[in-house]
């Protein structure tokens, strides 16, 4: 902070009153990019005119408007500024039609740069200075990584991202210091031990997380936490890795010592246990094994035949919604979790409540390790509601607040729920979430604008869970009925499906033989999770098939399912 204080006039222009703003003499309320007129160049040089989606919510000024204040025309608005600039640049065509077209299209035609022919001189690159193998005694290599949730810290005040479980550790609201099991044993470190790390004359504390599969003699600390002025969600959460990070060693530092403080710090996760305990949850085979026995996934555990029942079978003659999740494609990125939270007004409960086991994510991604701690296989399994045809939750609800729809959806009726929580007890997948307290903010006007108006906001004492985005199904149905046709395959996408970057989640009508979801369910890799319990889930999984290189040592190849 010392260097900044030497500057006589410091003006901060931004959307948040953060650490930098605190050290400036003037703070100017900035606009969000969705509130301002502006222009940008994309990666190939194409110009795009940025238009706002909403008038500034907090009376903010865009950068153009700020700079105008120092200029000849202080009252000039952002719109006039941008338009005025382009008016001066565009000659020879009717400006108005050029403007309308560019704003409508989102980019200016033919504004890309011409590519240049360049050659890179290889002589300027020096080899890396040190490797981790040089670390002896109690020192390790410390690696800085952007956090998988809050990135470099810019999203520290985004409560959705703070409460999002990190892909490997499932930790929330903190940045754990990841240490391999061997290194932890060598340095006598236990889970949640607080260590002090010194570098370049600075120090910072961190809480240890024993991470299976992490390289030995190396520890990883995520950036973006430990902020001092990051709003209600981000302030004081986690530890500030920037404290010991220098511009000369941005990615990693060698010879760092971890000094035990004797204290512990609670690191909270959303996942109870990361081993499958011998249960056939994520099923897998090598390519060779799959070729020998394509039905390996269903052979390992018997699924009851749908005809094997004392009861008359319900017929689903119209739409019958189902979902298939390809575990081969899932990379554990968690985009689906945030999409679901956004679409369905899922509340954030905070670190204390997550510690008590009350996180509210309708969809979660489970991470399981298999094999030795030093180098395990890792599997990701997104778990939404299975919409079981013989749903154990429906049977035990005393007030019939959860019943089965005619299209196969397990329907949760918030208005009827009296909160006995028997359904949660009887769900073997534990996908049901209960509002133990009033988790939603009823009063903040901005939240009312944020929420999806198609989805009920749940109050205290009611159960909620994945609905297969029933509001989207309804929209799809209405659109199809207007055109007097059936809902075409792919027109209704659940939020998780829409957000998944690897297309691992596929939703559709299983009565439509040509739908993608049916094709996936007919795949021999298809199996139901815990299907031996006779829940008859509509959400099924495709088993993992790996193709390990024959050059890998035996221990590193995955085991046969």
């Amino acid at each position, binding site marked *: 902070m010392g260097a900044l204080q030497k500057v006589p006039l410091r003006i901060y222009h931004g959307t948040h009153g953060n650490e930098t703003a605190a050290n400036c003499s003037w703070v100017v309320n900035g606009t969000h990019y969705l509130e301002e007129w502006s222009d940008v160049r994309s990666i190939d040089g194409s110009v795009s005119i940025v238009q706002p989606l909403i008038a500034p919510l907090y009376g903010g000024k865009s950068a153009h408007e700020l700079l105008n204040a120092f200029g000849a025309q202080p009252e000039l608005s952002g719109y006039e500024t941008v338009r005025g600039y382009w008016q001066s640049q565009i000659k020879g065509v009717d400006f108005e039609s050029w403007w309308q077209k560019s704003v409508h299209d989102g980019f200016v035609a033919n504004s890309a740069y011409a590519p240049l022919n360049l050659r890179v001189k290889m002589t300027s690159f020096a080899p890396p200075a040190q490797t981790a193998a040089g670390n002896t005694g109690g020192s390790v290599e410390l690696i800085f990584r952007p956090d998988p949730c809050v990135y470099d810290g810019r999203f520290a005040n985004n409560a959705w991202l703070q409460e999002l479980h990190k892909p490997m550790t499932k930790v929330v609201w903190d940045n754990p210091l990841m240490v391999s099991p061997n290194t932890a044993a060598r340095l006598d470190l236990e889970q949640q031990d607080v260590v002090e790390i010194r570098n370049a004359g600075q120090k910072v504390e961190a809480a240890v997380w024993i991470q299976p599969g992490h390289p030995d003699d190396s520890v990883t600390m995520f950036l973006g936490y430990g902020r001092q002025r990051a709003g209600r969600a981000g302030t004081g959460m986690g530890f500030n890795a920037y404290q010991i990070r220098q511009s000369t060693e941005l990615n990693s530092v060698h010879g760092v010592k971890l000094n035990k403080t004797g204290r512990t710090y609670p690191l909270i996760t959303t996942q109870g246990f990361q081993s499958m305990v011998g249960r056939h949850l994520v099923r897998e085979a090598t390519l060779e094994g799959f070729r020998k026995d394509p039905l390996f996934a269903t052979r390992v555990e018997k699924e009851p035949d749908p005809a094997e029942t004392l009861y008359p079978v319900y017929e689903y003659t119209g739409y019958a919604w189902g979902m298939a999740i390809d575990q081969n494609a899932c990379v554990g990125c968690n985009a689906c979790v945030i999409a679901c939270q956004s679409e369905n007004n899922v509340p954030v409960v905070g670190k204390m409540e997550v510690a008590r086991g009350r996180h509210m994510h309708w969809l979660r991604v489970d991470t399981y390790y298999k094999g030795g701690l030093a180098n395990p296989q890792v599997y990701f399994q997104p778990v939404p509601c299975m919409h079981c045809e013989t749903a154990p939750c429906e049977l035990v609800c005393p*007030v019939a607040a959860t019943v089965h729809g005619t299209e196969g959806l397990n329907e949760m009726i918030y208005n009827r729920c009296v909160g006995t929580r028997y359904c949660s007890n009887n769900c073997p997948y534990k996908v049901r979430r209960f509002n*133990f307290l009033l988790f939603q903010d009823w009063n903040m006007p901005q939240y009312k604008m944020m929420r999806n108006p198609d989805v009920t906001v749940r109050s205290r004492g009611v159960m909620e869970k994945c609905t297969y985005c029933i509001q989207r199904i309804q929209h799809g149905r209405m659109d199809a009925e207007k055109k007097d046709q059936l809902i075409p395959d792919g027109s209704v996408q659940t939020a998780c499906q829409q957000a998944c970057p690897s297309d691992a989640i596929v939703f559709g009508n299983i009565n439509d033989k040509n739908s993608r979801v049916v094709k996936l369910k007919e795949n021999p890799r298809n199996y139901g999770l815990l299907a031996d319990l006779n829940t008859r889930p509509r959400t099924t999984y495709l088993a993992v098939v790996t193709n390990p290189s024959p050059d890998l040592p035996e221990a590193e190849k995955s085991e046969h399912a």
Partner: protein
Amino acid sequence: MPERSITEQMQEAHGRPPVLLPGHTYATVTDKISAVVLSRRTPLGWYIGFLMSAGLVGVLTLAIAYLMYRGVGIWGINVPVAWGFAIINFVWWVGIGHAGTFISAILLLVKQSWRNSINRFAEAMTLFAVMCAGMFPLLHMGRPWLFYWMFPYPNTMSMWPNFRSPLVWDVFAVSTYFTISLLFWYLGLIPDLACLRDRAVNKWAKRIYAGLSFGWRNSARHWKRYESAYLLLAGLATPLVLSVHTVVSFDFAVAMLPGWHTTIFPPYFVAGAIFSGFAMVLILAIPIRKIYALDDMITMRHLDNAAKVMLATGLIVAYGYIMEVFFAWYGPNQYEKYMMWNRMNGPYAPVYWGLILCNVLIPQLLWLRRIRYSPKWLFVISLDVLLGMWLERVVIVVTSLHRDFLPSAWGMYIPTRWDWATFLGTLGFFAAGMFLFMRLVPAIPIFEMRELVHKSSEEVAVK
């Protein structure tokens, strides 16, 4: 060498202590029992005890108020352990209540005269225990103000409860049990209220007892219908003893959780209920007979028999535990195997082993005659049984929920101070109820004691 007590002398003469010590007439039993309510000075201990109980009722009120204000999140429940102390205590209290009905109803039908002196306070124990139990299903709901939706009644939504749900069965079973117990208890009380009416000196006491006794006048014709109703209610209450806790066990057995989904639960729960209920009966009987000098009517025979019932039901419960282990070991269900292993070795293992100590090992002391004839030992063992039965419900509810099918969902349950406050508050409520009962109503059925006097005089005449 102290002189042998009458008990010991009678024991020597008849082989077992008597149900009613000799020397009583119809008048003396009437006078002695009604004096506790009407003329004897309330002991200081009663005031202290009642005040302490009332204090705990205050704690309960506070706990309930805060619960209504903030929600069930003030307790330690979560996902996966969505049921905690509330259900544990519900089952514990309902179980305790069953001994009262066993004594009133079943012992009547099998003509066990030792039930005569203890059935009223045992049935009062049932009523207060069921009241305490009944609070919990209401309190543990997320939206308790809508509890009436669990009853079938015509409404504008055209909605009805789901009769397939064990919780709806519970509503009917516990309501029926409370109603029948209340009616049975009250029916038994009517002649004694008439007796108090006739003996009360205080004008208001006389009026109140007169009103409550409905003008009972001891007519022989009335007695005939009365006995008929009494016997019929006993006959109706008998299947309730077996069925109510069976229905409560269905809350667990109908679910699919390993550790819950097992056919042994109905008999195991019923036996456990009578086990804990008799423990509570002893905990009440032993001080009552001492403080009010009623040991001539609640004799060592009663304590001995109660101890024997406890031992027998304790053995059935122990059998249940052994069977659960056997099912897990012998059967193919991997989830059940893990559940049993986890109970014995996991984070809640101390609770499980505490349970085995309290419910299986310590009650074996009851095989010893010396222990059964020692009120002090019986009191301690009864406390131990109550603790053990409470631990059993903790094991059932918490260990099965906290680690079930998907390891990713595993969690822990840690009760909060509000969990404890609510539980202790109900203990106070129960105690306060029993104190009021002792003070206002004859704790021992007077007319049934007269019947015992009649029977023993007949026996003497025959001899």
